[in-house]
């Protein structure tokens, strides 16, 4: 069975990462191996924006953990940006082998709402599945509910399912 390496950077509850791995494994029918990554995130911090450069992080995860024949996915809990955008939830190399996502802006308490562990877990699974979809060459989809629909606002994520629509599934 082909493999996805899920690498956690930062402190996550063990159960949280396991549930993500389980769900991703089910949705893509890939074996998911959990690994821990250690990076000095200070190297990626932009003091003027007080955020972390996702382009550089993605490249670093690809350099350190990218492996032919498997997908590598880095999970962070810091505020990610790319130069042109104020923030991003995650990103990936389209048709490549690496993706990253952060839980930072997925948590309800970031928006002054009651924090629900299940909501954070669901959103993270969707974000991981979405970015992994890009590594499989899938682009954004216009079928409502498909995990590959673009989400630029946190509650957009709640509007979709964690799985691919039949069109994307056929391409995958």
């Amino acid at each position, binding site marked *: 069975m082909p493999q996805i390496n899920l690498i956690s950077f930062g402190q996550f509850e063990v159960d949280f990462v396991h549930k993500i791995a389980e769900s991703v494994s089910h949705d893509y029918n890939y074996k998911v191996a959990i690994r821990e990554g250690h990076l000095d995130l200070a190297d990626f911090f932009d003091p003027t924006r007080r955020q972390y450069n996702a382009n550089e992080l993605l490249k670093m995860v690809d350099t350190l953990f990218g492996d032919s024949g498997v997908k590598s996915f880095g999970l962070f809990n810091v505020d990610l940006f790319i130069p042109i955008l104020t923030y991003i939830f995650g990103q990936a190399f389209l048709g490549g082998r690496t993706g990253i996502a952060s839980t930072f802006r997925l948590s309800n308490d970031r928006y*002054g709402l009651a924090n629900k562990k299940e909501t954070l877990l669901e959103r993270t699974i969707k974000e991981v599945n979405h970015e992994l979809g890009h590594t499989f060459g899938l682009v954004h989809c*216009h079928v409502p509910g498909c995990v590959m629909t673009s989400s630029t606002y946190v509650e957009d994520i709640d509007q979709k399912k964690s799985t691919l629509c039949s069109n994307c599934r056929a391409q995958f």
Partner: protein
Amino acid sequence: MARKISILIVDDEQSVRDSLYNWFIEDGYHVECAEHAKKALSILESESFDIVLADIKMPGMDGLEMLRRIKTLKKDSIIIVMTAFASVDTAVQALKDGAFDYVTKPFDPDDLSHLIRNATKQISLSEENEALRERVVSLENVEDIIGTSEAMSQVLREVESVAQSNSSVIITGESGTGKELIARAIHSNSSRKFFPLVSVHCGALTESLLESELFGHEKGAFTGAMYNRKGRFEMADGGTIFLDEIATISQKMQVELLRVLETHNFIRVGGNKEISSDFRVICATNRDLKAMVDSGSFREDLYYRLNVVNIRIPPLRERSGDIPLLVDYFIRKYCNSMNRTTVSIDSAALKRLQEFDFPGNIRELENMVERAIVIGNGKKITLKDLPIRKITVPSNVESLEEIEKAHIQQVLSNHEWNITRSAKALMVDRVTLYNKIRKYDLKP
């Protein structure tokens, strides 16, 4: 399928070009980059682009000069200018020179996405207008709507005819008939498909929560509201809002909703600034709204505002001819998601399914097929895998009591003696059902 929209990015900063390139490639656009205006103009001479996203401040020829030159090459080009410096003067000048819009770096992803979708919508509308006379309409993204019966074909014809309009739609049908799927099909086949379809399950929220969900709230509007939050109407800007279980909303929310539908303006909870949103509304209900209007529990003016087009989804018992197709679809769906080899169904089991009433409609059939795959032998679904027991009313029975007894026995059996579900199907409360079970001495 719609053609790929092409975007040319013109910016002297490599990191900006790379970020935008990756962003748009993931969105499925065809993208090219140029590091200065001269190169952009040379690309545009040989290749046509739908959208040009250009920085204003560049060495050599600046963005405004380039904008004017592009407009002489192709008058209807969509050009969006961007700059790191918020300057009203340059913005006004760019718009006067024919720019489609103006943005300041760095962008909010939501704003960028919205801006490009607006541009895409304009392109697709003008192309649709040109091709309108010879266009052959075919529905997209309806693969999940299964059925070839006349009743379902009629529903799809209605979806096709209503999709391109902006009219409000009420979808009626019993629980489990697939009302949300029809709402998605309408949205996916409308010119709003590049914008979100935002769903709200009105029945699941209390009045105050629903108000905050629909209209959003301002920081400090209530205890715990520490940040501003967009409401669903705002999120649906450019797209469609789907209000499920519309019959459950309170009289107060009916008034609020009517006002928003009439003006498309609203104020966030705790706010004082009026927000405008361009959305289309689709509602769904399993109740008889007209009867609710007659009894005074649903506002007549709101009813007529919503009920411009009414699409009725037939219950499964009215299209039992579609059951084999649906069963086949659900078998493939669940075998695929459970990573199992596709099972088949024997003719006796299929016949039993076709004879069954399905009070819970397609949802009930789907659950039944899923259950049969889980508990079955992995090769063939047979009668013993189905939670349906055939109970026939003796032909010599004529009394109402005997018919009631047989019917209750049948419904209990269909629901595996789950009292809550059986009572719901019989439309009686649980106590009444228990009394009937005692009265007729019914046993599993």
